[in-house]
């Protein structure tokens, strides 16, 4: 494979990537296009005279929505970790009775369509008065991430060498201390992976936001964009600017943490 690296493959690769990413380019392009040029025929392929009106509109109107999304994202990360990490420990290292069944239930839970969960939550929240609250949205969003988190923690933790745990026991550590000072530090890459996806899913969620939180004072950014489209079909540059801003944290997280994600899924953490 390394002997010869034909140039045509690189060229083809670049062309394919460009085709695949064209919608992303178009998103950025439109976000910078002058309102008067949006409907020109043919469309402007490149924003020769870029405008930042769209972005000004975002920061003028959508800052609260961005804040809400951050809050929901972080809330979801915390809730997911608090539930998934101890459960993973119980399943992987404490030989929980009925662990197989629990694993199976978690797999099944991942197959339940979000729209069905949304209806169930709507009925429950309606009686509890939790509709249109940020807390309610955090809990609903976490249902996407918790089963994934438990399964990932379990898979990783069952690879932790037993000698490490026995050493802790010899030193007199109980189950809790072993979890807190040995298992958790060793599993930090998994925790990072779980956090990353919990955040991304909560940040990008549309179904729960549009059903459980649609009349809230604090709407997340996905709903901000959706309402924007509804009210404002002429200013696609502003809509697209909002979309670009909404994509930034996702992109940043994955670029910055990509290495950790790969490491978390594959490598053992005993070395570091």
């Amino acid at each position: 494979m390394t002997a010869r690296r034909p140039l045509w493959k690189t060229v083809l690769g670049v062309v394919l990537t460009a085709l695949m990413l064209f919608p992303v380019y178009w998103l950025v392009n439109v976000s910078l296009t002058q309102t008067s040029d949006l409907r020109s025929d043919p469309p402007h392929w490149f924003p020769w005279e870029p405008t930042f009106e769209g972005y000004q509109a975002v920061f003028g109107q959508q800052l609260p929505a961005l804040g809400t999304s951050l809050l929901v994202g972080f809330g979801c990360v915390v809730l997911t970790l608090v539930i998934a990490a101890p459960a993973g420990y119980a399943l992987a290292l404490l030989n929980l009775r009925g662990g197989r069944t629990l694993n199976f239930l978690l797999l099944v839970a991942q197959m339940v369509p979000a729209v069905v969960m949304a209806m169930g939550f709507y009925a429950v929240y309606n009686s509890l008065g939790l509709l249109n609250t940020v807390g309610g949205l955090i809990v609903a969003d976490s249902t996407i991430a918790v089963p994934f988190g438990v399964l990932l923690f379990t898979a990783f933790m069952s690879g932790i060498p037993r000698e490490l745990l026995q050493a802790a026991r010899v030193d007199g550590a109980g189950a809790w201390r072993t979890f807190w000072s040995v298992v958790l530090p060793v599993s930090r890459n998994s925790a990072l992976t779980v956090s990353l996806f919990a955040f991304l899913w909560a940040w990008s969620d549309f179904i729960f936001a549009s059903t459980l939180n649609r009349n809230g004072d604090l709407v997340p950014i996905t709903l901000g964009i959706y309402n924007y489209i509804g009210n404002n079909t002429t200013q696609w540059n502003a809509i697209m600017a909002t979309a670009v801003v909404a994509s930034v944290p996702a992109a940043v997280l994955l670029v910055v943490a990509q290495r950790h994600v790969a490491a978390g899924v594959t490598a053992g953490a005993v070395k570091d």
Partner: protein
Amino acid sequence: MTSTPATVGTRGTHPGPRGAAGTVPAAPAAPAAPARRRHRGPSASQWAAVGFAAPLLVYLVVFYAYPLWRNIDLSVHDYTIRAFVQGNAEFVGFENYAEVFSSSTFPTALVNTVLFTFVSIVFQFAAGLALAVFFRSGFRLSSTLRAMFLVPWLLPLIVSASTWSWMLNSDNGIVNSVLGAFGLEQINWLTSPDTALLSVTIANIWLGIPFNLVILYSGLQNIPGEVYEASSLDGAGPWRQFWSITFPLLRPVSLITLLLGLIYTLKVVDVIWIMTTGGPGDASTTFAIWSYREAFGTGQPDFSPAAAVGNILILIALVFGFLHLQLQRRQEAS
């Protein structure tokens, strides 16, 4: 996934994370089995185990089982908005289900769900596999370009869906403009009943390619290079190699990828809802969209039929879900 999740999950959504969730899980049960035989009776460590799992158990009951039960409850009562507030909905048994099955939307939604799901996963899979094989051959920039292919997958679905809406816009969309340059007539992608389903399917294929690429690429990594070397010594060309080595050896991973794709595509709401809201008429209405529209999409929420449709959808997803688990178990055994 869709992040999904994939994943993924997911995400998508979204879905990779979703894929990882599907592929990692069953491993942990193995070391648990022999140890369990050693300890009998509720030992101290068993209490600790229950303690650590307790938050999850409570969580699953309160935030999974209870909403799902409420959903079943909705589907066997006649819930109107008033009944919802007063809590005195009339019990109607399977009437809502009967109504759903005899509704004129049912055959359309069924056909649309099948078409949307089937066409999406076939093309996602084919493109993902072709790209995975292409990227595996290793060339300058290949790992960078492969990483860039993930971008569509990590964008929030509302972002990709609204971008596609604007690209497919009848009057000002780039797609029609390019087609026009080749002398084709304007196509009303999202507003014509003939092309609405096609349009959302195209967008969904685009969204799903990264997920398929990731899973299939990692599957390819597990095929030892020597197999290829031996076959090229025997004079097999790339085409021959693909059909006699790559394809058969990749079969287990492919099956899992296709089934996960199926389960996740059945659930899709965001993309279709944002691009067409299931319309025009019912032209791009799938079961998931139908359920969403009845409950939340109109000014007049109709929860009971929506819940009935949702429960039918759960049943379909579970059938394929069990198929997936069965396959996975068989692979671990072999």
